[in-house]
């Protein structure tokens, strides 16, 4: 009997600790699948963030380093510069990567650092209970934008991929979502391209994954998926934002 779908090898067999309907688990599964397909599980090192994403090390069966909030790209840089033969990726939330860690991700991209970042954009600070993130969309209510985000006091939703696309070292930037099988397949291709960008030594790569946070959005998993598609994607258009051929450093 043909296997249509089974758990990837690199995904440790235990239940995720995420909320029902959260896509953190889904994203991690896809990363695990790509690692399996590339056969790089033995030389991959993940760098965890602070945020709900932090639990990734309990689920992905690779070496892991956990560090301070927002600094994963710097930590990853330290690892990659020490061990250039390893595949190093960071896995970060929007608070982590686009708020406190802005400088670290931007300069990693600008250096063309040979690392890959997977960025879970759920438009809120999930772990701390749903505060406004730089990626919170306009009018979205959060616990620190109780009347909805409005530009005058809170600023605008930050489009990280677009920002990073102005950095010369960014070799591959892509934005994906996981709300249906087609998008999931596209996401998987993007994640694979990102890791291949690294493996081929072409430059910095990042995949932004739009992801629901039903708990803090105050929605059912289904509502959250709908909201993501209808409200979030218009602010964060899916697709490849930067694809540079050749080796940037050459």
């Amino acid at each position: 009997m043909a296997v249509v779908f089974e758990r990837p090898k690199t995904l440790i067999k235990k239940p995720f600790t995420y909320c029902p309907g959260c896509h953190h688990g889904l994203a991690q599964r896809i990363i695990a699948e790509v690692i399996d397909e590339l056969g790089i599980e033995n030389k991959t090192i993940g760098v965890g963030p602070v945020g709900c994403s932090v639990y990734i090390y309990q689920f992905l069966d690779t070496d892991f380093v956990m560090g301070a909030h927002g600094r994963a790209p710097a930590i990853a840089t330290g690892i990659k510069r020490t061990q250039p033969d390893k595949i190093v990726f960071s896995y970060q939330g929007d608070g982590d990567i686009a708020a406190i860690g802005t400088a670290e991700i931007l300069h990693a991209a600008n250096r063309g650092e040979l690392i890959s970042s997977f960025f879970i954009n759920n438009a809120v600070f999930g772990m701390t209970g749903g505060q406004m993130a730089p990626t919170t969309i306009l009018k979205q209510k959060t616990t620190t934008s109780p009347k909805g985000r409005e530009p005058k006091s809170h600023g605008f939703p930050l489009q990280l991929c677009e920002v990073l696309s102005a950095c010369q070292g960014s070799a591959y930037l892509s934005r994906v979502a996981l709300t249906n099988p087609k998008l999931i397949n596209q996401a998987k291709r993007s994640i694979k391209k990102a890791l291949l960008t690294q493996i081929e030594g072409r430059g910095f790569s990042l995949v932004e994954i739009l992801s629901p946070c039903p708990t803090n959005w105050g929605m059912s998993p289904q509502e959250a998926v709908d909201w993501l598609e209808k409200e979030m994607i218009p602010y964060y258009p899916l697709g490849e934002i930067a694809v540079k051929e050749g080796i940037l450093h050459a």
Partner: protein
Amino acid sequence: MKQKETMRLPSGRVIIDQEFCKGCSLCIRICPREVLGLSNRFNSVGYYPAVVESAEKCNGCGFCAQVCPEVAISVYRG
């Protein structure tokens, strides 16, 4: 409660791990054949997990497994 809820059919076979499932219903929503539904008994963590309700309808497309955030579903065909 059984740990695994399985079904067998010429076209598709779906296994849902009842302890991994959190009852988010995303699989139910995506299934083109209305194969799945929610159980009315909660699992040991306290969630009402998805169960196969109309096994015979499954075409083994794997959509349910693709979208399951808990990687609770395996799908086989043939």
